[in-house]
């Protein structure tokens, strides 16, 4: 080497205060010159150097958010909440794809059989989707990290609610989009909304005692039986759960189940599954 970077410039370089074009020149030179690197090591602030390495290290292995997590971050969701939601099974593409497929089939069926006053199949299926989605979001059978999560200081009910709200928003959003595809029915096509909230909150409240698999199964089965009974007595008209009175009952059930869920919230803080 015929020249070397001055010690003063090396100090500025170490502090990150050297400006271009001297910076570019020093950068290239230091890469090739062992003597200047040795001087740089002596004049550099070791604390600042460690901090710089740490920043670089953090930059390199900080998780790059996936599509869904990135979307949540853009919507203003806090980073740690977005990460918790990214681990929710019912918010994965496969589940959401299945929901879209079911809704499309029920919408097509509604168009094919437009002889009744309301799209019965669609209204019957739509409330089950958030129920199933929430059921798939937690519990030892479906959440691979359930056992680690249940002994973590974050309250189990809080984690459950974070996931539930996200799943309900996603499911109801898709249900809502499907409703827009049935404009001919007017507001009657929205009669799934209150039953959906009633089934989901009842399923959650019962899962505190029956577990995350049996409870939604019981609620879903009960919904099916109710529809069969309503169909038998409807005489060709709108099924009872989708009438104004039925909607009132659904709203009352949703409110009662929400109150019960709040009362039993501490049960979600303990392991809910078989033990060896």
């Amino acid at each position, binding site marked *: 080497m015929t020249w070397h970077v001055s010690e003063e410039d090396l100090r500025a370089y170490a502090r990150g205060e050297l400006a271009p074009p001297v910076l570019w020149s020093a950068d290239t030179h230091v890469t090739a010159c062992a003597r200047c690197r040795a001087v740089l090591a002596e004049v550099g602030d070791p604390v600042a150097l460690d901090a710089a390495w*740490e920043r670089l*290290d*953090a930059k*390199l*292995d*900080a*998780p790059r958010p*996936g599509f869904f997590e990135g979307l949540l971050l853009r919507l203003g969701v*806090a*980073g*740690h909440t977005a*990460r*918790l939601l990214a*681990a929710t099974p019912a918010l994965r593409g496969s589940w959401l794809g299945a929901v879209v497929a079911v809704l499309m089939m029920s919408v097509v069926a509604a168009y094919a059989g437009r002889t009744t006053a309301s799209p019965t199949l669609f209204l019957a299926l739509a409330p089950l989707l958030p129920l199933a989605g929430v059921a798939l979001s937690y519990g030892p059978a479906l*959440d*691979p*990290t*359930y*056992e*680690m*999560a*249940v*002994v*973590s*200081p*974050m*309250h189990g009910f809080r*984690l459950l609610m974070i996931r539930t709200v996200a799943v309900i928003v996603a499911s109801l959003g898709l249900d809502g989009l499907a409703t827009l595809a049935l404009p001919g029915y007017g507001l009657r096509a929205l009669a799934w909304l209150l039953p959906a909230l009633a089934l989901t909150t009842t399923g959650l409240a019962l899962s505190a005692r029956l577990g995350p698999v049996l409870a939604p199964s019981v609620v879903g089965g009960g919904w099916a039986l109710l529809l069969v009974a309503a169909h038998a007595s409807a005489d060709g008209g709108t099924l009872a759960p989708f009438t104004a009175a039925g909607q009132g009952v659904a709203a009352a059930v949703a409110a009662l189940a929400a109150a019960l869920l709040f009362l039993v919230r*501490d049960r979600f*803080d*303990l*392991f809910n599954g*078989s*033990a*060896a």
Partner: protein
Amino acid sequence: MTPTVSASGLCLRYGGTRALDDVSLRLTQGVTGLLGPNGAGKTTLLRVLATAVPADQGAFTVLGQDPGTARGRQEVRRRLGYLPQTPGFHPDFTAFEFVDYVAILKELTDRGARHREVRRVLDEVDLSDVRGKRIKKLSGGMRQRVALAAALVGDPGFLVLDEPTVGLDPEQRMRFRELIARAGEGRTVLLSTHQTEDVAMLCHRVVVMAAGAVRFDGTPAELTARAAGRVWSSTERDPGAKAGWRTGLGAFRNVGDPPPGADLLEPTLEDGYLLTLDGAGTEVAV
């Protein structure tokens, strides 16, 4: 020394099964091994001590806190590390992302501090080089180390490990034992295992469980001493032995009450363990 865990009279029933039967124990700093056959109640005890499952009867404290209250339970969980028997992973997460996820569950919400902690624990289990790899592409041993790293987040004072060496090949098992030994420095570790070698190599104390009850609580040397004068060699299976098996040299190794003039052998921890299980059923008849 003040015990990290102090439990007395713990009972728990699942249906008609008595999973824990009047279990009392005190755990102090260092690694304590929990030995027992399948169905002995080891996992149930670990889940109770890890605050995942409440006991029907009895009381216990962890790090001076009572997990019977919501506040006490949360305080315990803040200082607890737990590696379950079959740790689950979100398959698309990298090692870093998974430990980061667990760190969020452990209330580390500040991104910078959390990422520093994640790097620290991955470094502690020698996984810094693969932190960006997806978990589904890691070997079984590496996955187990990722789970251990997750358990170490927040520098817990009480570490509960449920059969962490199951399914690992001998080399991975040795490596994992080194990590457990390191993790046991300065904290209390409760290690459930089927392997007497784990206990012999790692533990300053051993608890043997069978049918939900504690059958032995002492040092590994004391457990081994239980078999002194009760292990012998024979050319044929000795029908009077409580357990007997053919060794690699072709002779039978028997434990129990030796016949007069028997060729007595030096006892091992495994011999003491088998004799302790005598009458408890499950794995003695070899």
